[in-house]
């Protein structure tokens, strides 16, 4: 199988790799580039654990072919902390016990991040809707919803 070049920006730094044609972005990120923050839960689009942000939109990296991302701006949870300081969403997830086994967490955080990027003060319904493509088998969801609402409040207080 012929290798094809893929080139994109991952969390602000340029990445270039050769992958087999048809390789999913999830596979390229985890096994080629070494960013293991997106998780492979189902490879069917059902669990959301592989969620990443591509050009500002939430996408499932398990159903996205790496070759279609040439030139894209890709964001993952591993790029959120700055100089060792956790992002407000990461902080809120830890404080609210919104992460147990942690497998769903990077996907949940990506889904929450696009919500907060567009909606400074989301309602509870908006948070539930934003997380509706992400499955968690541990927490029962409530702590996750609370963590996102807390991070939104922290963000808007910082902005004020």
């Amino acid at each position, binding site marked *: 199988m012929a290798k094809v070049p893929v080139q994109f920006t991952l969390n602000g730094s340029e990445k270039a790799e050769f992958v087999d*044609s048809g390789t999913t972005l999830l596979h390229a990120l985890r096994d080629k580039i070494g960013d293991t923050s997106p998780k492979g839960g189902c490879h069917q*689009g059902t669990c*959301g654990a592989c969620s990443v942000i591509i050009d500002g*939109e*939430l*996408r*499932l990296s*398990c*159903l996205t*072919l790496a070759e279609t991302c040439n030139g894209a701006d890709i964001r993952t949870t591993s790029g959120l902390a700055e100089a060792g300081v956790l992002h407000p969403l990461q902080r809120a997830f830890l404080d609210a016990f919104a992460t147990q086994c942690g497998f769903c967490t990077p996907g949940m955080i990506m889904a929450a991040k696009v919500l907060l990027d567009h909606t400074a003060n989301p309602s509870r319904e908006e948070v539930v809707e934003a997380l509706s493509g992400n499955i968690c088998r541990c927490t029962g969801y409530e702590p996750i919803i609370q963590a996102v609402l807390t991070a939104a409040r922290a963000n808007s207080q910082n902005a004020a």
Partner: protein
Amino acid sequence: MTLALQTFSTVKDANMALQAAGTRYLGGGTLVVRAANEGDVSVSSLVRVTEPSLSAIAVSGGETRLGASVTMAAIARHPELAALAPAARAVGGPAIRNMATVGGNLFAPAPYGDFTVAMLALDAIVVTEDGQVPIQTFLAGRDASRAIVTGITFVLPRAESFRFLKVARVKPKGVSVLSIATLLQRAADGTVTSARIALGCMADRPMRARAAERALLGCRLTAEEIAPALAVAGEGTSPITDPIASAWYRNEVLPVHLGRLLLA
């Protein structure tokens, strides 16, 4: 199992490549890449097109054209397509809606195809390079179709004449038990003068409820007057049985949900 992806800048070139055995078109990939991940070896090669017209939305007067690559998210947020937003929002969760295309939804087998149910109620026209076909003809022949769908055209409904309902068990984003779209024209006294009713999950692909449409003509939307239409809503259906619901259950609840939608 590896896939070879070929990218073309024109539909014409991609259509040629699509004639090869084992080759499928790649829309948003939510069904076709999933199939490959699940080990479907019937797909060995994918073809995609980067032509910008495929992602265009054009609304002029009521005439609307959606390019085949337009996503559910783009429809849901478009200010002039508010009437269709409930149907677009019915598809999957936020990430799926950012990927799922109009073109892919036309091919989605039950329990999927919620947006196509809305398009069927609007009697949309499906456009390929070879010409235009009414959506019902397209759906009947889609398994044998090898041509890339480039877009879909329809007359945008007035908000009060068009209704859409998706019934799901998991809120807010479960897979459909069934979905229903209705387009009703009514006279000044409220009697129905024309009716189109489209159903999802009541067969392997979206279908029209012809008997119910006929029975609604001349009725006002009261529980008593719509009863004969509800009684024949299941005529011609052969619903799927899947982990969400059995065929029997879908047939039982169809008149209940159609009634609620008509009386809403």
